């Protein structure tokens, strides 16, 4: 039998504790990633993950962060709030990450954000619903995606410019449905474009025939389809079957290259898609393109690039990898008037030499308001012709 004496125990623990300091320096710095690898967001999630991994690899190759290698701990949010909350608890309680990057769907972010701010973990997201930055997040959240107001206003401007007269809004049940409807109406109505009606539908249906009938009864010449890819694909088919040939407008994530390849050409003909545009002229964008080996990374890859860059630079600036340190330091990186840097590696080198920096990103200038919204961004509009996207304008 082994006898454990108090003195023996103290001696052993002291012996174990001493080299622990040395060990910690070699241990990788774990950062949390929570993106949709499955579900409606599964087109963007894996690509956002790749973009973050690429930046992490670049930082690691240049010597790491605070002398440690970055290691991304990845969980799948399944584009599902319940799964996302479980995964967030795992990242926070088990892996003890200071930051979670990557929630995509607004409903998911709305569910995960309280878990984050309660545990003082920083959260970066692409979710667009206005309500998200109005949550009492105490500064533990930033989003690089324009909010509903900015998006809906720019979409409405486009619809007005292109001459529609009667708009019907078909939206999925999601936190962004109502604010988008409100801001669209507020922008369209004064310019003489009538909002003929709106309808919110349930996501898990295999047919939207009745909803389509309801919309078409109002005789619109433009349908604003505010949903996700699986449901918008069904709605587009049902619109074609119902004989509708008028205008159709949707978010780029609701009609992706992939779904364009799968849907019949007749069904997608004439659909206009809008997306927040990455800052194509920025050196940060060029660096992201080179890093990822893609000619034109999209807005989501650009935003993911910016999150990890901002987080890494903030941790370096604060000299501490905790959620609270990130929360108090992040605007010293994003909102400062100092020397502009476009990549994390350049920024880390500048910080090491004692300089102050301002990170300007691939998705845009990345300057945040007090509640964590970006100030402005550009939008890219594409139209579908014969089964392929044709560029219309960036505005």
């Amino acid at each position, binding site marked *: 039998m082994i006898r454990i004496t108090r003195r023996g125990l103290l001696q052993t623990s002291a012996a174990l504790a001493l080299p622990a300091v040395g060990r910690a320096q070699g241990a990788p710095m774990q950062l949390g990633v929570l993106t949709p690898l499955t579900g409606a967001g599964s*087109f963007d999630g894996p690509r956002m993950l790749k973009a973050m991994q690429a930046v992490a690899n670049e930082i690691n190759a240049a010597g790491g962060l605070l002398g440690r290698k970055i290691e991304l701990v990845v969980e799948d949010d399944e584009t599902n709030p319940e799964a996302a909350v479980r995964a967030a608890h795992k990242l926070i309680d088990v892996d003890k990450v200071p930051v979670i990057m990557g929630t995509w769907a607004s409903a998911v972010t709305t569910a995960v954000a309280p878990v984050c701010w309660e545990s003082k973990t920083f959260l970066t997201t692409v979710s667009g619903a206005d309500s998200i930055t109005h949550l009492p997040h105490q500064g533990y959240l930033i989003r690089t995606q324009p909010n509903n107001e900015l998006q809906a206003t720019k979409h409405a401007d486009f619809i007005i410019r292109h001459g529609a007269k009667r708009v019907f809004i078909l939206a999925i049940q999601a936190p962004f449905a109502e604010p988008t409807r409100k801001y669209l109406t507020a922008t369209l109505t004064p310019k003489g474009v009538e909002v003929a009606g709106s309808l919110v539908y*349930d996501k898990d249906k*295999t*047919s939207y025939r009745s909803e389509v009938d309801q919309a078409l009864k109002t005789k619109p010449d433009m349908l604003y389809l505010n949903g996700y890819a699986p449901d918008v*694909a*069904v709605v587009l*088919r049902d619109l*074609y079957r119902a004989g509708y040939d008028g205008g159709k407008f949707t978010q780029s994530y609701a009609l992706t290259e992939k779904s364009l390849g799968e849907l*019949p050409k*007749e069904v997608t003909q004439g659909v206009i898609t809008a997306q927040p545009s990455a800052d194509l002229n920025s050196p940060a964008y060029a660096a992201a393109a080179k890093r990822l080996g893609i000619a034109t990374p999209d807005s989501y890859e650009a935003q993911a690039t910016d999150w990890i860059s901002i987080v890494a630079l903030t941790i370096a600036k604060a000299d501490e990898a905790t959620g609270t340190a990130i929360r108090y330091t992040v605007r010293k990186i994003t909102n400062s008037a100092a020397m502009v840097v476009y990549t994390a590696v350049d920024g880390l080198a500048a910080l090491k030499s004692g300089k102050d920096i301002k990170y300007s990103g691939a998705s845009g200038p990345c300057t945040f308001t007090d509640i964590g919204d970006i100030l402005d961004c550009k939008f890219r509009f594409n139209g579908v012709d014969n089964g392929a996207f044709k560029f219309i304008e960036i505005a």
Partner: protein
Amino acid sequence: MLIDIAQLVLNGVMAGAILTTPAIGLTAIYAVLRFPNFSVASHATIGAFAGYCANVWLGWPLVPSSVVAFLVAGLAGSLSDTVVLRPLRPSGLITATIASVALTIALENMVRLGFGNSLRDYDLPIMRDWRFGGLRVGPQQLEDLAISVVAVGTLFAFLAFTRLGKAMRAVADNPTLASIKGIDADRIGQIVNFIAMGLAGLGGMLLGLDTSIDPLTGFRAILAIFAAAVVGGLGSIPGAVVGALTVGVAEELSQLVLPSDYRTVVGFVAILLVLSFRPRGILGARAY
């Protein structure tokens, strides 16, 4: 207004017809094996993907592809039952039911592993709807309806006129008495399971024909399928048909009074009402 209601009823009948085959699958397994097998959801998905492979990869027309959907889902059902559910059934209803939920998640993810998450479409021409007297109906819907009617009709004939069908009804009605008469209840259970999962697979393909398929195709429909089986009377095959049509039509008609995003509520309310006031379902639990 009247024409609107007629259109909603028509949409509901079409949607209900598609729910019929998986609902029969669920109810048939309940009748013979005495537990609700929620892995009907993933077998519907497996059928949808099997039909997709036959239709898109091999270029087969719709009807042979739907036979493939039936066979592959049926075989997958036999395999998963032998490996997972059969050994657990002696431990009781709750164990088997929970195991079936776990099984459906596992199978769904196996489909995901092989095919990925993206939406896939069958290789079918999309057609404008036909209109008559203010109503509209899609040619594809009618084809789905026809396939469903033929499948259900064949099943009824099988149960009514063949020796094996009669044996199945006997086991469902009274397993002890059936075994006294020399019917091997275990073997009948396996055959019912094969046919039931095959029907689920066929239903999964029908669900996908009108829209698109992905690994969640069956899971999205499981609430409506379960509601259909419960409303008709869990264990009753004609009940599943009546239940599916009732749930389909009720979901559509609910739009007259409820906003469209509350459609899912209809399935839950139907289950709640039936279990509160008529737990045996509309037709009661007779297996035929």
